[in-house]
């Protein structure tokens, strides 16, 4: 078992990074009826951990008896019926799914599943009508239509089920949904918190941590706890005992993007652009999300860039990131950004060095 999972806090009481939030959530669940919840925050900040702990708090250990179902939903979409296949994870009291997997048919999925859940609502031990919890991941990836239909179903069936939504950025969730939920922002843990967690794990694993080593990992992790623990574990595999100067390797795709960035800096020509496209294709084939590629690429380019260009480059990156979201094929937009960068950079080089 990976350390990330091994040392994941199981209950709200054990949570270390967001103790305050955890305590409040506990109070909320025990004292009164729980509202819809929207957890948002950067990756690796502990949203899922909190949600799992919360479910356990609500339903006890039964929440951990989950089964995976690959179910085909028959959806009546006006003139025709659609068959949408989706993997769901469910216990007696909750269902979890990624509605964005259904692609642009996501709006049907949301409606259909909530309806289905409302049909068979459980009755708890006290004879009181209970409610089911639906956990929806990656809500920010839902299409606008799906979010609208989610809003309507949320109202209609709020007596029967509670929604727990989870996403990275609340800005991509519509206002209507945000206002119907209790928004819980999960901040990325600070580096000190990460160091604390790493040291705890090191102690439990019986490892010798040289001073500054945990801090080094924390710094490299970009304030993602998951990332920190994962690289901690790889470091352990790569070299033990640790030294304080040990190289913390980054992900292979990140190295690849760095390579790509230096390619771009070296030569600016249509030919090079074509080579870059080939590399981008390889990243895309491996399902690295295009937004993340663009973000990482910008990060790598900015590292080596003259300060006066940074503003303009960032502007274009944002511009093409937005277009990517509106468009269909990401490569068109990433490539346009690369071409724009090359164009800017080349004219800058000519202006400075003649």
């Amino acid at each position, binding site marked *: 078992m*990976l350390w*990330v*999972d091994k040392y*994941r806090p199981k209950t709200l009481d054990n949570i270390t990074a967001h103790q305050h939030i955890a305590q409040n959530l506990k109070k909320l669940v025990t004292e009164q009826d729980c509202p819809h919840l929207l957890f948002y925050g950067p*990756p*690796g900040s502990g949203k*899922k951990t909190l949600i*799992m702990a919360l479910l356990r708090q609500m339903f006890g250990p039964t929440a*951990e008896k*989950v089964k*995976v179902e690959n179910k085909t939903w028959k959806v009546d979409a006006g003139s025709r019926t659609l068959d949408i296949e989706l*993997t769901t*994870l469910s216990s007696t009291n909750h269902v979890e*799914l990624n509605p964005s*997997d259904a692609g*642009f048919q996501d709006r049907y999925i949301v409606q259909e599943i909530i309806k289905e859940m409302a049909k068979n609502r459980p009755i708890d031990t006290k004879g009181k009508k209970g409610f089911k919890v639906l*956990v929806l*991941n990656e809500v920010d990836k839902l299409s606008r*239509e799906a979010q609208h239909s989610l809003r309507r179903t949320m109202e209609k069936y709020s007596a029967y089920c509670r929604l727990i939504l989870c996403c990275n950025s609340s800005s991509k969730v519509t206002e209507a949904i945000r206002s119907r939920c209790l928004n819980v922002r999960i901040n990325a843990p600070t580096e000190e918190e990460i160091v604390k967690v790493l040291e705890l794990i090191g102690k439990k694993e019986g490892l010798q941590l040289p001073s500054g080593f945990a801090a080094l990992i924390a710094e490299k992790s970009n304030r993602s706890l998951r*990332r920190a623990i*994962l*690289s901690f*574990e*790889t470091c352990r*595999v*790569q070299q033990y005992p640790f030294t304080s100067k040990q190289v913390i390797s980054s*992900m*292979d795709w990140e190295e690849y993007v760095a390579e790509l960035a230096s390619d771009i800096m070296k030569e*600016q*020509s*249509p030919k090079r*652009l*074509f080579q870059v*496209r*080939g590399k981008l*294709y*390889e990243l*895309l*084939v*491996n*399902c*690295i*999300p295009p937004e*993340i590629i663009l973000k990482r690429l910008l990060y790598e380019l900015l590292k080596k860039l003259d300060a006066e260009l940074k503003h303009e480059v960032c502007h274009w990156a944002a511009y093409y990131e937005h*277009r990517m979201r*509106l*468009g*269909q*094929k990401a*490569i*068109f*937009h990433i*490539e*346009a950004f*690369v*071409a*724009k960068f*090359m*164009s800017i950079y080349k*004219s800058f080089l000519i202006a400075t060095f003649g």
Partner: protein
Amino acid sequence: MGKRNNLVVLSSDDEENERSLSSNRRYSKPKSRSLLTRSNPNPRGAKKARISHSRSRLSKESSNVNEIGFLYDDFDEVFNGFKVSAGKREHVSGFGGSNANGLWVDKYKPRSLEELAVHKKKVEEVKVWFEERLRSSKDEFGHYVLVITGQAGVGKSATIHVIASHLGARVCEWNTPTPVIWQEHLHNSSAGITYTSKLDEFEIFVERIRKYGLIPSSSAKEPKSSNILLIDDLPMTNGKVAFGRLKKCLHLLVRSTRIPTAILLTDYGEADSADQTARCSEELKLYLESAGACKVAFNPITNNSIKKTLSRICRLERFNVTAEQIDLIAKASGGDIRNAITSLQFCCLKPDPLRSLSLCDTTTTYLREKSDEISALDGEFSLKFGRDETLSLFHALGKFLHNKRVALMDQDEFLVRDKFSRLPMKMDAPEKVLCQAHGQARPIADFLHENVLDFLCEEAIDDAWTVASYLSDADMLLATFRGMLTRYNEAENVLQSAAASVAVRGVLFGNSHPSPSRWHAIRRPKLWQVEQSSLCNKTEIVKRRFIGYSGLTLSDLSVVTTEYTPMLKWLGYGTSGGLETRQDLMQDNKTEDNFDKMSLDDQQEIETTDDEIEDW
């Protein structure tokens, strides 16, 4: 005959209407009536008219030959329930003879070698081939099959017929029998007749030819005449098995027949190359050649010889058609003489209304008047008929990518900044080219995206950006309301054509310093392959979603791909196939063509990408 009169009355009614529209509205009532009758034409009436008409034709003609021809023509129409098994049709040159009402294509069928519009050398080649085989004793030549290829209407079958009559040989022709419609099939099966596919029939036919040769039925009277077998139309095949059968059957025919046989294969334009049948015919051609058949390819007929033929017909019909008109028709036909003659006939309908009425073809007159109106509006003579010139997709792409410009520019009336001004293009409006190539926005954009960088000048990174930004615009247009507008076809179409236009014009505008012309191969978008394999990988990853959280909850896909997968690879945990491919990729990405390795399952991918090609 009564019915026929009725039809004539109808058309005159039409004329009255047209007049009434221009002058007064007195005839508004008959107008509505005539419209009604025209919109629900009584099929029985029409048929009767046709029969009576043919009968009148027959009474004029007394030759037996024409009677047979008529029977074949109208057999289906009159006895609908019957299945016509016209497997082998006897064809006598001069069919359709001097029938004044017939189509000119039949009427002016070439009767001598001189009348053929096909290039002399090709005709000679075919003639010699037949002569040799007809004259010589058995087994002097290895093979007795000639394959003639060429696009539609270049006179392939006409050549064979003319040569046959020149050599005094009898032509036996195989035409694929008329298809069996479903009702007919039901009727047949209830009557106990089992269905045989056209391919079966063809196989039986070939078998018979091989074993017994041609059965001398009518040639009994003239025993000396020799035979030529003409296979005009190979049966359609669907699927690999049927195609294999056809191939085998043809192979046997090529190997064993002792009758000079001509197989005609019609070339389809490259525009249709996505079509299955076109690919099949290409393959068949190669296969027949490899089996030992001799091949002659007919080129499209030259403008000059089309013009010559057309003028000859005009002379014989005593119509005055201007040279420009003939020139136009010849140009529009694209080397298709059959089409040119039909166009000419249509064009000649105009000056003689009485004559066109006697053709008892109300629709034609109606159309004619319509088109007259339009051309009157245009104020100039324009061709309202003829084949549309089609371009292949690749041809169109080549035009866009090469971006040829007129070298010298006159002073432009619009003054734009140098940055935005471009030399005039050496082609029609891009939209027109797109239309001719039947270009769809998505594939066009993908193809342009894939290939445009090759055509840019080495230094022109700014151009690359301009092009890329326009392509990004096009992509955005294509994605807007994805799938939402399917119910509003019109809106969707507008969007599509706007996107195609943006992509094409963006490429044309952006590429302001085209690289010097040299030969570039146009590649198929790699993007398609990438999409396929990334989809494949994605389903693979979705299965691995339970990696984290001890399977208690689902991880985000992005987290799985960006964090868990690479980490697990390092840790040496469960490296499944997908991860290994990834490693391969990262290492040998320098080579161009390692994309084949990219997919998890090559076989599957090839199939799916093939499908995609067929789609457009």
